[in-house]
């Protein structure tokens, strides 16, 4: 009996250790989230109140997705330009880029959304309109029409929300691009320039391809963050899932159903996207 135990013990310990470690390494947090999601899906399909809330809120999904995608695409352009501006040796460009980044990063996103949508855009459009009328008064009516064609009435809250999110995230993405570009060793620029490439050519063909590859995971993370921050556009009455949930909760007083469904919707999107980002990150690493 005792002999048997002695021979068994070490075998058990070895097995036990590795299986323990395997258990510890499992993504329990993910299982927990999946469990919640499955549970909520079950409630939605079985409970009439949850079902109604879900069907109502689902209608906002299109706006949430399109707003995020459009804003992010524009933000990528703003971010790349501002990021290039931040490393520019031209004092004027450099300071404009720095000014933009610092101002945006110094103000809460919620305040920025109010400001850009309700102050920034109207003031800019009014200014352009006034300029257009002035041009028309001075005999260049065809040019004036370009500036008076769009008035504030024509710009929907949804468009303003997209502009606001894009301008805001552009500043954050600028810092990602800047860091990415600066992470490429100086020798790369020197090699490109020594072959006769201009600064722009060296950037485009040598530096940016490497830098963008390096910052892909960071960009992905910011995209996930933007999905969440897109909920802020609800303050402009844009009917994304957050706004629709608020409307539903307000009219039916079913707060619990509305916000549980809403939270799980965001959670599902962000977890799936985060896992995708991790996957991309891992693939980039193995291909290095």
């Amino acid at each position, binding site marked *: 009996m005792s002999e048997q135990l002695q021979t068994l013990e070490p075998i058990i310990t070895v097995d036990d250790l590795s299986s323990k470690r395997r258990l510890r390494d499992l993504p329990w947090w993910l299982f927990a989230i999946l469990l919640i999601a499955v549970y909520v899906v079950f409630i939605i399909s079985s409970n009439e109140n949850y079902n109604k809330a879900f069907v109502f809120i689902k209608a906002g999904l299109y706006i949430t997705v399109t707003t995020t995608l459009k804003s992010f695409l524009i933000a990528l352009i703003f971010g790349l330009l501002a990021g290039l501006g931040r490393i520019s040796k031209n004092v004027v460009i450099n300071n404009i880029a720095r000014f933009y980044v610092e101002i945006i990063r110094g103000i809460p996103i919620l305040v920025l959304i109010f400001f850009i949508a309700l102050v920034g855009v109207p003031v800019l459009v009014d200014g352009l309109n006034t300029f257009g009328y002035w041009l028309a008064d001075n005999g260049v009516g065809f040019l004036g029409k370009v500036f008076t064609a769009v008035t504030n009435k024509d710009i929907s809250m949804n468009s303003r929300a997209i502009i606001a999110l894009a301008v805001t995230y552009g500043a954050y993405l600028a810092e990602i691009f800047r860091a990415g570009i600066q992470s490429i060793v100086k*020798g*790369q620029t*020197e*090699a*490109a*320039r*020594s*072959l*006769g*490439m*201009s600064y722009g*050519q060296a950037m485009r*063909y*040598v530096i940016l*391809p*490497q830098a963008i*590859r390096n910052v892909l995971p960071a960009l992905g993370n910011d995209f996930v963050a933007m999905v969440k921050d897109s909920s802020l556009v609800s303050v402009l009455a844009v009917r994304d899932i957050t706004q629709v949930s608020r409307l539903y909760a307000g009219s039916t007083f079913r707060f619990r159903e509305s916000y549980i469904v809403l939270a799980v919707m965001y959670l599902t999107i962000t977890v799936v996207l985060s896992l995708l980002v991790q996957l991309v990150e891992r693939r980039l690493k193995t291909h*290095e």
Partner: protein
Amino acid sequence: MSNSDYIIEIKDLHKYFGSIKAVDGVNINIERSKVVVVIGPSGSGKSTLLRCINHLEEPTSGEVWIDGEKITHAAKQINEIRAEIGMVFQLFNLFPHLTAMENVTLAQKVVRGRSKEEAKQIAMEKLQRVGIPEKADVYPTNLSGGQQQRVAIARALAMDPKIMLFDEPTSALDPEMIKEVLDVMLDLAQEGMTMVCVSHEMGFVRSAADEVIFMDFGKIVEHTTPDGLFNNPQKDRTKLFLSQILEH
């Protein structure tokens, strides 16, 4: 116009980094097809001098003339002039996101405006010339140091440069790979390429150099021939340096 007997003219060149005088009043004239090797202790300003020739460093004062054109403070044509001056770096500086072939074709297409086919054909010639045509589709990370440096040489040669600059091209290489790079350089020298090399390969100095420049503290201590350097060094500083590097 300046005297076009010389392909490179450096006149009273100074380059300061803050209070450090990296290059301190250098005058050099280099004739076509000459191979000039610059030697000297580390920090003597050799690399900075070389980098001033293609304006990777902007001189603090003085003039650099390439083939009768003044390049100092001529930002506009600098890209055209640089395309005529190939440079090979200590750390190769290949573009890691491109294959060997793409490394050699990129600037041909972008700077020289050559067609894809033409650039590829020239690239293949150059890769053959440096002895690694079979590595055309390989990425730099999968090449040895010696192979990377040879691709870098092919990349520079593909631009049909008038001048080649070598900035310690073998310093980062394992000993067994130094020869393959030096062989390529020797070949180039024999074909009449104008070369300026910062290097401590005394074998290369002996067999390929027409002139040797010994620098210390940003100044030229001695400008002589290989024979003059090894057999008849004039300055004590040169003798000391030679004794230090030739002792073993």
